[in-house]
Structures are given as structure tokens and as C-alpha cells.
């Protein structure tokens, strides 16, 4: 299958700063995207999703941006907190396939 990948494997951010995590995908048929957060010893936790008919969606302290032209997805975390330290995965699905494909993951470390 086609890949969903992340540009950077690690991100170190100062507490209080904004974080941006990037994801590239190659399947032009993908129409649904999800960001997950995985803390150590836990399963992935849903953060936010976006469908291909949108280019931006906001949640609590998080914003997901979708650029279908360049097949790029990003997650922005505002005012990053120590509790945001985790591995973040993007995942995508196409309308005619029920399976999710996951990217490689970005490890975010928040510096106090």
C-alpha cells in the first residue's frame, strides 16, 4: 500500500511554545485523516480528525491542517505542556477502504 509518513522522528519543544508535527501522505484517494497520541505504556489516543472536504479543523489547543495539493497534514499544539510529551501518529483512510494506515510517528519531548 501507499505510505503515510512523518517528516521528523523527534521534536523537542520548550514548555509554553507551540508545536508543529508534520505528516506526508501519498495516497491521493485518502479522504479521512486522524492524529493519535501515544503515551508510554498506553494505547494510541484519538486527538483530532479531518475529512478531505476541509482544510482546517480546531480542537482544544490543537489544530489540524490538511493540504491536499501537496498531500500534507500537520498537527499544531498550542502552548505545549509537559503532558503533551508522547509519540504522535498520523493515520489515513480512503473512502473505499475501512483500514487505517499509520505513519512512522514523531516523538515530542517538552522541555521545562
Amino acid at each position, binding site marked *: 500500500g501507499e505510505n503515510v509518513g512523518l517528516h521528523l522522528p523527534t521534536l523537542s519543544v520548550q514548555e509554553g511554545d507551540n508545536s508543529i508535527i508534520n505528516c506526508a501522505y501519498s495516497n491521493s484517494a485518502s479522504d479521512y485523516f486522524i492524529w493519535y497520541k501515544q503515551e508510554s505504556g*498506553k*494505547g494510541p489516543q*484519538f486527538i483530532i*480528525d479531518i475529512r478531505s472536504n476541509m482544510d482546517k479543523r480546531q480542537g482544544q489547543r490543537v489544530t489540524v491542517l490538511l493540504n491536499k495539493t501537496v498531500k500534507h497534514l500537520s498537527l499544531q499544539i498550542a502552548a505545549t505542556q509537559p503532558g503533551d510529551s508522547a509519540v504522535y*501518529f498520523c*493515520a489515513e483512510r480512503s473512502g473505499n477502504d475501512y*483500514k*487505517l494506515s*499509520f505513519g512512522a*510517528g514523531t516523538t515530542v519531548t517538552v522541555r521545562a
Partner: protein
Amino acid sequence: SAVISQKPSRDICQRGTSLTIQCQVDSQVTMMFWYRQQPGQSLTLIATANQGSEATYESGFVIDKFPISRPNLTFSTLTVSNMSPEDSSIYLCSVESWGAEAFFGQGTRLTVV
């Protein structure tokens, strides 16, 4: 959102033995999936657990090694058979309904010695 209970949360097993992992959901769901997450890696789909029929396996995974059951819409099991150290991973149950996000259990951390 669905609440998923996965058992056991962790186990240490001898090579050559088998372990069955259980996944219980608090509501009926359309789809149930089993993933493997090797140390420091992303999630890889093992199979889709089909209610009342044989699971659908992804490339590289076979029923003899990872038999799966799904007797109803809220419960599934994954067995890791004839284990070797290479099977040491986190195994995750996931559920979703059509068009919605997928939720994950806490995972089973398996170490094979």
C-alpha cells in the same frame, strides 16, 4: 467513544507456547482490528476480526500463527501461537464504526523469552 478492555496488559512467555489476548468493548461496534507495534515502531495491522466468520489477514500474517475469534459484536481474541522472541511486541485491539474514528485498547505488552 467506546471503552475497550484488553487482557492481559502484559505477559512474559516461554518460547514455543501460545498466548490468547482478549478484547472486550462496552458497546456493539462494526469493525474490530488487531495491530502489532514492535518496539519503537509504528502500528502494523495484523487482521480484521469478522463477526461470525474467519478473520481477514494482512500480508505477512497468517491464521496458523495468529488465530482470531470474534463470536459477537463486542468481543474478540487474538492468539499468538508457537511464540518466539521475535513476537515480543505490543498487541493492540482497535474498534471503529463506519465513517468514525478508531479507538484503541491499552495494549498487551508481550515479552517472549
